């Protein structure tokens, strides 16, 4: 396209900056590989830029962007080097379809997740933080904490399960409120 107005350029950069994580997460969910995600993300970004003239600003940006990402994920899958683990094409298509249909819920889940994280006891939140902020695997972290890896896995699993429950409950309550309104 011809990005012949600065307004278009600004609009694109603003939307892209706001939603790049959606695109990246979506790609990873289809490719399950960081390097492949990188490459597909770059290709998606360039495709979005080139095709931005066709974007209908009245429509939400994310579904439009994810459609390009899906194509790039499939291309990336085809390019995958021998020996790389890839999901089969049919599964990628299904995951992509289902994910695209869940966009609104995904946003709600993220907001709920942040609230639920705040509700975690300090010790659990600290453990989660260490797990996700450090460079070690769970096994290495367990060694540091003087904990048995299996036990640490279990602890993290319980925290994740509690978070998942909390999120689902929050969404259910929201749904009830909306239904009653």
């Amino acid at each position: 396209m011809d990005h012949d107005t600065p307004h278009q350029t600004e609009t694109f950069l603003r939307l892209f900056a706001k939603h790049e994580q959606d695109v990246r997460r979506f790609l990873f969910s289809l490719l399950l590989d960081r390097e492949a995600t990188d490459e597909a993300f770059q290709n998606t970004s360039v495709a979005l830029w080139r095709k931005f003239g066709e974007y209908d600003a009245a429509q939400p940006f994310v579904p439009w962007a994810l459609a390009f990402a899906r194509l790039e994920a499939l291309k990336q899958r085809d390019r995958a080097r021998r020996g790389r683990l890839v999901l089969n094409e049919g599964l990628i298509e299904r995951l992509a379809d289902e994910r695209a249909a869940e966009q609104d819920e995904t946003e709600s889940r993220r907001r709920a997740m942040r609230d639920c994280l705040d509700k975690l006891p300090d010790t659990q939140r600290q453990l989660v933080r260490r797990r996700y902020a450090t460079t070690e695997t769970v096994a290495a972290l367990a060694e540091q904490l003087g904990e048995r890896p299996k036990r640490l896995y279990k602890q993290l699993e319980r925290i994740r399960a509690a978070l998942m429950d909390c999120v689902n409950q929050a969404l259910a309550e929201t749904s009830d409120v909306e239904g009653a309104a």
Partner: protein
Amino acid sequence: MSDTRAQLDEATRAELEALMAEVVDESITDERFAALQTLLESSDAARRYYRQYLDMHFELADEANAIEAETIPVARLAPSTDRRALGGRPRSNVLRYATAAVFLIVAGLVVVLMQRGAVTDHRDPAGVANDGPPVATITDVVDAKWVDADTLTDLGSSVRPGRLQLQSGAAELVMESTARVTLLGPADVQMLGPNRCRLTHGRIVAVVPTKAHGFTVETPTHEVIDLGTRFGVDVTDMGETRVDVFEGHVKVRPYGTSDASAVSLTAGRSIAIDSATGNVSDVTADAHRFVAPQHAGMGVASSEPASLMIDGRAARDAGTPIAAPQPLPPSDSFMTIVLESDGVALRKPIAATLIKPGTSDRYDTTRPLRVRSGVKVRSYLIRFDPAHDPRGLTFLDATVRFDTPVLAVIAADAELKASGTLLGSPRVDYTTHPDGLEGLSDSQKETPDTVTLERDGRTLRLHFGVVNDKVDQIRVIVAMPDAETDADPGN
């Protein structure tokens, strides 16, 4: 609302979660990957749980996040969302860099198109409508807020002659002449030409390559003219000006006069200029004046991961705190990084804890590694001094990236003391704590500490746990610029 867990039997959910953990840890085998695929193909609920698990993983990673070192010439500290967890073990920064790279690709496209005339707006990126050919490009921003709220896409934008008002944060511009200028907000600057600007208020740091010699910063009363250097200029609201030369040579002369009245400044010299009289007087060097205020401090609240890029050229004087010990609320814990010695040749081998990429969590001295003698080095002391915490234990997670290769990390008490005879500086206060030069604790102890030197050989990741009023300290030995010297293990 869909509760996926309720739809998956417990065993399937546990199996799926285990498989997902292996995926994000990048430890999954071919067989397990095939099992994951089969499971996902077999059940809508499994796929749903899979997507929710990944979303949760990313949210947790964002919450826990780390920090990216941003790049501004003096020193950098910029908290931001860590994307390491995307796809697993955060040890790789590929995605983070890819994100930045892609954004730069996009920004680059904008620049290219602008240069080709495809984008015809000549509006100044700071919202100032200016004419004339571009004099600079904005190449980096750290939390930059411009006075003009309409500024949306400052990164990669061309800057034309006119006024730039930076409310807060930092912005790096590369002049057409190739001089690299960092504005530290709040700053008010007039871009006058491809190699000249006027600083009305605020601070700038300039790095000027040979090609751009003659780069000039006008202050309210004087001109600061580069002769191949790296320097900072600070102009207060009242017009008081100071100039700090970190490297090379500048001349400073009253505005509109000839070189006959110029003052010549060399590296390490700092002057203040009285706005009323124009008198010039020497002042004490103050390198961290030129660290962006919102990033200064490095006073890292204990539970906040933090990141800092150390540019050894920015602070030449031993004892100069590179990261000023200003506490950040709510904690009054802080980490400081102090340059101890610069260009010291090791007269004898030095015992060290870590001399190549890897992680250390043992600090006994029975089998130390060694940095060989004869190597010229620079050394820093990193100290984590937490506030008293009645709960007893305070953690620090931090990332520090150095501008030259790390040759060694010295973390054991005895090694710290021994190396201090060669690398310690009388200008560094080692008596901050009654325990003196106290190193790190072994993982078996109550407060395990770990130090990781990343594969790039320049980035340290620190995790310190400190009890009450203790301190944790390490000495980091890095190569001198232009002397990419390696160390021999066990030499």
